């Protein structure tokens, strides 16, 4: 399963718009500041390109918990921001203290174990506990996952993984393209030599230029 072409296009558009809005190309930013700005743009772009899903809402909500992110989010998402951070009435849950729930689960499982297997733990109980444990871990990883039931969690996790993979692939493509353009910009001063190598004449920098030339096909300007 893969992300759609329209998702890819929307992601790139939002990502680059985010770069411009947070001015990542300005030299005044430190490396770490720029990295955080890029990461923020990437996450917002991914959520925005995907549209309204439980995990995208969860992600935007999580990002907007930090004050300095909120103005950026409002700027890049516009009216979408209010819509995505509005609480979803479909999955309304009674807020429960986590400690109490955890304690009651432990008591329940202990009681179950005592009734069922006085002489050792049954494999089915162990398997179920393992699934529960892993489910809790997944809930923490998928944004907005804490309030989801098992089936929805799996559904959101699948969608989230597909989107994350696309995010990684596209950022990698962007990186490669930027690197290639940098190299071609550097080689502009040796343009006559590059022309010569294309025609087939031997050049002093023949090898270096053919290496750079190999990267050129990526630019379809």
């Amino acid at each position, binding site marked *: 399963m893969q992300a759609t072409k329209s998702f890819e296009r929307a992601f790139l558009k939002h990502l680059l718009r985010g770069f411009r809005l947070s001015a990542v*190309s300005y030299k005044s930013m430190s490396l770490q500041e720029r990295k955080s700005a890029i990461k923020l743009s990437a996450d917002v772009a991914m959520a925005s390109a995907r549209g309204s899903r439980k995990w995208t809402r969860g992600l935007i909500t999580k990002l907007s918990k930090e004050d300095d992110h909120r103005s950026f989010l409002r700027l890049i998402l516009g009216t979408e921001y209010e819509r995505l951070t509005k609480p979803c009435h479909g999955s309304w849950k009674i807020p429960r203290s986590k400690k109490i729930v955890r304690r009651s689960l432990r008591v329940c499982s202990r009681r179950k174990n005592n009734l069922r297997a006085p002489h050792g733990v049954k494999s089915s109980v162990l398997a179920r506990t393992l699934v529960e444990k892993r489910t809790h871990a997944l809930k923490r990883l998928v944004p907005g996952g804490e309030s989801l039931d098992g089936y929805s969690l*799996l559904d959101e*996790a699948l969608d989230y*993984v597909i989107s994350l993979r696309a995010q990684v692939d596209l950022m990698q493509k962007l*990186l490669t393209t*930027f690197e290639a353009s940098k190299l071609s910009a550097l080689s502009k001063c040796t343009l006559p030599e590059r022309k010569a190598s294309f025609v087939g004449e031997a050049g002093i920098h023949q090898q270096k230029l053919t290496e750079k030339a190999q990267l050129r096909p990526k630019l379809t300007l």
Partner: protein
Amino acid sequence: MSSRRPRSWQPSSASRITDEQINDLVSKLQAVLPEARIRRSDRVSAAKVLQETCNYIRSLHREVDDLSERLSELLASTESSSAQAAIIRSLLM
């Protein structure tokens, strides 16, 4: 089979999700994980799929972090923004 699924996997609403639907999702999830081609023939347990999914998500997060850092180094030294705009246009076509 249903004894292995914790009760918390059933949604709070009235509609009950069948085991078949859950298995379908689990196999779809297994298919997007890396090395899916090797393992698709034999049925993998749900617990394993959940663990692999968690590991995969964590590794994807790390990749995004790493790519952000590399992009940050690269964008620091890029001069013209018009060159960037041309690149962007080419990527979007």
